[in-house]
């Protein structure tokens, strides 16, 4: 540790040559093509991060011993969101290493990985992907090939652009950027996405979850005529259309939330109930006719 501090004092940042573009790019592509492939329970994305750092570390450390030490440093536990978050941290860490402070690089990684993991996962998975893939799946089930193609393109281009942009941003702006983001603008952006997500979900749930009741109630005969069965579903449709899909979703939400039920159990239970009740012809739309 005393080593690195000495080095900062000896070589002011201005004197150090900036890392060439080609070296930076090698780091980025290493990250891009293979970031998580060596993921493991013990240190998660550590090896992937270290491997992406190697071109930069090699360039900055002409001395073999300090190079080996730098590699060991970057094998420490690391885990964050791979699409939104990871590239930014990689860029910032490179900037810190370039400024000669290995300990700061360490600090940047540890400080950013947690918060960015939460933000990144929510943005990419819960909000963006849900949006894209619900539309795409609906089209696919209807038999349109443009459904999956739409999803693939909406991943291919934005996912690359957003990673490349963050990497450059992280390298040039580093830690100061995160402080600005935390000051409100980013939070508002996320809030907007959450609002959008919830409105869309409100429409998605009744349109995609499919369950109707086939129950009929035989009412009293109106003045001497034959008693006519009343379809309960028709009555529901008049008051609260799509009541059952909403109720089923609410029930599962309640089980997951309140009782912290594992989603696998929710799937098993619905599978069993669905097969049991559906086999009797209950709760499914009778063939159109």
């Amino acid at each position: 540790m005393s080593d690195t501090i000495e080095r900062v004092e000896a070589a002011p940042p201005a004197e150090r040559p900036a890392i060439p573009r080609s070296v930076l790019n090698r780091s980025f592509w290493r990250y891009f093509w293979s970031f998580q492939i060596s993921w493991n329970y013990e240190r998660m994305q550590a090896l992937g991060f270290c491997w992406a750092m190697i071109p930069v570390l090699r360039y900055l450390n002409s001395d073999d011993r300090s190079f080996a030490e730098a590699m060991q440093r970057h094998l420490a536990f690391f885990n964050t969101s791979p699409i939104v978050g990871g590239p930014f941290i990689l860029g910032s860490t490179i900037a810190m290493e370039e400024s000669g402070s290995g300990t700061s690089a360490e600090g940047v990684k540890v400080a950013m990985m947690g918060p960015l993991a939460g933000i990144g996962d929510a943005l990419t998975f819960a909000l963006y992907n849900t949006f894209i893939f619900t539309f795409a799946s609906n089209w696919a089930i209807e038999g349109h090939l443009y459904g999956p193609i739409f999803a693939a393109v909406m991943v291919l281009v934005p996912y690359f652009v957003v990673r490349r942009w963050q990497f450059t941003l992280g390298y040039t702006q580093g830690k100061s950027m995160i402080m600005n983001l935390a000051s409100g603008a980013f939070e508002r952006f996320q809030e907007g996405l959450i609002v959008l997500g919830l409105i869309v979900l409100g429409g998605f749930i009744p349109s995609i979850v499919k369950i109707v009741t086939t129950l009929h109630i035989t009412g009293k005969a109106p003045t001497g005529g034959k008693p006519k069965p009343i379809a309960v579903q028709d009555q529901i449709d008049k008051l609260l259309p799509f009541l059952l899909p909403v109720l089923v979703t609410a029930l599962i939400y309640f089980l997951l939330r309140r009782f912290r039920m594992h989603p696998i159990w929710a799937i098993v239970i619905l599978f069993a109930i669905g097969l049991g009740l559906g086999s009797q012809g209950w709760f499914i739309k009778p063939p159109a006719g």
Partner: protein
Amino acid sequence: MLLTALVLTLWACFCIYDNLGPTLIYASRPLIAGTVAGLIIGDVTLGMAVGGTIELIALGSYTYGGATIPDFTTGAIVGTTLAHAVSGGFTNQLSVGLALGIPAAVLLAALDPIGRFLPTFWIHRADVAAVSGKTREMTVLHFTAFIPWAAVRAVPTFLAVYYSGAVANVEKHMPAWFTNGMTLVGGILPAVGFAMLLTLLPVKRYWYMLLIGYVLFAYMKVTLVGIALFGIAIAFMFVTLRPQTPAAPGVSRTDPPPATDPAPAAAEGEATNV
């Protein structure tokens, strides 16, 4: 059959690689995995239907922080293949695809921790390699650590596809009760995906946003694209019109008094653009 099994096994490996690595087309999402599996066996429509349905079940399930979730990817591939092996109409095939694909996904979740655990040995070897500065060895270790990840998916996929002929004989005559049951299963299982998503979002604070979407769809018969556009407009209004007193000290570093003025002006500009 051997060739198909090998190609599909390769596809299953690519799916997990794409998930961990470049995320080019998100091949690990059941929709993409199932569609391409359908292309490989020559029945895209079936692949899209099986993959799409499983996708809706898997909507909210991602490996947050390395959690194990049902392996819907392999489930979609296996489900599509087995469905194709069955004779009978499209509805029959789809119900078989779901009946086998979903349990396969749940069961294969048991293998996932093995794939996540084994690379731990690799990272200890990487520690040793780093001490002696061997970059080549680091590279080799980084890439070979992927083998356990791929293996726990490749082996079940290959076995299921290679022996898919066995299913064809068993399911020659699909009883009506079974098809009916699977119709309901396919109808209600997406509720799990939506419920999981809702647990990630601040429902208590913004429950009325759900209501807006529901009313638009259920009463006003707006299409999903229409709801999305409406949602974008509401989100913009919500963000720009909201009083932003708490954010002020951080945002307006330069000059506090005029900062309140340009903000609504910019907000109006944005709103009209939408």
